[in-house]
């Protein structure tokens, strides 16, 4: 697609400098090692095929969350979303979940979405915690505004972290905004934030070599448990 760079100067938002998120490895209940690392704009095309199948899954509002994540990643890739970061989880290179977020200002973070593709291992919880870790510990922000689009998200974030209700609107619209402050983050860190650094070199190499994505059928089955439903 041809781009008019003259016009693009007006449309393309400037990005703020952001410190990187240092990768970590989390040992899951299965004993699997999940590498949690930041990805960048050029990685988006590799990630989108993992998000696309969720657009047709109403269960737990995967369709709402998935379509928004898809649009956010695409907008970021095509320079229409500013100050965004994205963190993914990989097991043996396979993408098992992702979170995205952005800086609204140096003091305030805006949590966008959490999408777990592999379920039942608290992957969403681990990745959400990594996102908060980045906002508070590495970006040095004072608080993060969070909202929920699914009942699972509401229970997990608002209740597990004991978030504070805020007035006004989260930029995603919808449900009321809640805030995670620095103090609340450090109070919860010991029970909600896992992982070790540095990531062993061999694990990091596998993760960086390729972002592998499960087939569309596998992704749907991971989310719905559809294989057994068909048999039984």
């Amino acid at each position, binding site marked *: 697609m041809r781009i008019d760079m003259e016009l693009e100067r007006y449309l393309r938002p400037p990005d703020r400098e952001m410190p990187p998120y240092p990768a970590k490895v*989390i*040992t*899951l*209940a*299965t*004993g*699997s090692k999940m590498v949690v690392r930041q990805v960048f704009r050029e990685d988006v095309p590799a990630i989108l095929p993992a998000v696309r199948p969720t657009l047709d899954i109403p*269960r737990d509002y995967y369709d709402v969350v998935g379509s928004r994540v898809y649009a956010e990643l695409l907008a970021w890739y095509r320079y229409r979303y500013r100050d965004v970061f994205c963190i993914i989880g990989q097991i043996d290179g396979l993408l098992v979940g992702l979170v995205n977020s952005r800086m609204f200002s140096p003091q305030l973070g805006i949590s966008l979405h959490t999408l777990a593709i592999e379920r*039942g*291992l*608290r992957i969403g*919880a*681990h990745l959400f*915690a990594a996102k908060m870790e980045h906002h508070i510990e590495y970006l040095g922000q004072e608080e993060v505004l969070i909202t929920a689009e699914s*009942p699972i998200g509401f*229970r997990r974030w608002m209740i597990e972290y004991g978030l504070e209700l805020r007035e006004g609107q989260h930029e995603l619209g919808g449900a009321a905004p809640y805030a995670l402050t620095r103090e609340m983050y450090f109070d919860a860190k*010991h*029970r*909600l*934030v*896992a*992982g*070790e650094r540095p990531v062993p070199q061999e694990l990091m190499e596998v993760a960086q070599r390729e972002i592998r994505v499960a087939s569309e059928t596998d992704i749907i089955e991971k989310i719905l*448990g559809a294989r*057994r*439903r068909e*048999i*039984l």
Partner: protein
Amino acid sequence: MKPVVIAGAGMIAFERRDDDSLVDMLAMASLRAMDDAGLGDHPVDAVIVGNMASGLFNHQVSVASALVDKLSLYPAAAERIENGPASGGSAIKHGYQAIASGMADVVLVAGGEKMREVIGPRATDVVAYMAQPEAEYVYGVSLPAMAGMFARLYMKKYGVTAKHLAQVAIKNQANGLLNPYAHIHMKITMEGILTHPDSVVSNPIVADPLRLYDCCPVSDGAAAVVMTTPEIAKTLSSKPPIEVAGIGQATDTHALHEREDPTDLKAVRIAAEKAFAMARCAPQDVHVAELHDAFTILEIAESEHVGFFEKGEGAKALANGVTSLDGHLPINPSGGLKARGHPVGATGVAQAVELVWQLRGEAGERQVRDAVNAFMVNFGGFGNNVVATVLRRES
């Protein structure tokens, strides 16, 4: 009394089943059991449904009548049996009584619960309605809370450790991997749920000392059996009928703290003694068992109270592999409540279905070799209303 057999058994996969109503699930499981029994057009005299809380979970009651209607089994008698999480075991007992007394020739017993229609905390609250209202529920004592307090006492008194609890979870989730009907299909490791520092987050405390993987999932599901006399069973199908050799039931104080020793599961012990006496056998004669491991500590405690092991020896037997699938006495080859899931009213019937399959040699990859006597405990309340059952294959 007439002898009673299970002529057919069937169930559906336990999981979250958004698209199926409770009665749909009961019907699917029932049709499988009826097909398995070779029932054909043979009349069903009574339909008994084990269910704990359809009114609260699903805004529907009289589910036994609804099941009769769904399956066009009129004019069969129909009743729902409610005994908390032991509703399934109690339903089987009522099926037994109907056949043994001569009041009925063929009884369909189904158990089912659709718990995922409500959110998790609401499901936990509904299950907690079985607690003593003035002394327990009003103070926020849920079933995980009771199990946590029980576990703490039991660990202190009998030397059970967090590692033993984790071993129950690992064993049963490994068994569940071999069971296509199980809710949880995930192999877990000691490192992942206990020894690695990340396990604090991956396997968080639910009710100290119990962690997430010490607790059964909240599931939807249904299971069913067809009960009849041995003579009728032989006219229906060539599959070997499984004798209901013994049933025992016992109760205990409603409030846990009123028990002389809260670690003594008296109702489990008495129910098991009654079942073994009726079946004219002993715990040592059992080849495979399904115990009610809603929490990992319960598998260990029940294995001692029913007489498989001395008090304080259950955890050691577990650690030595005695209760593993290839051990001397496999416990919960289905994955138990821990992995198969625990749709409360379905559990007792699902335990019977698993044992029927084990005794017939139809349990696939999780088959226990040469089992003749099988035993199950369906644990109601927090051990205040327990049903124990011995099933037997003709040797």
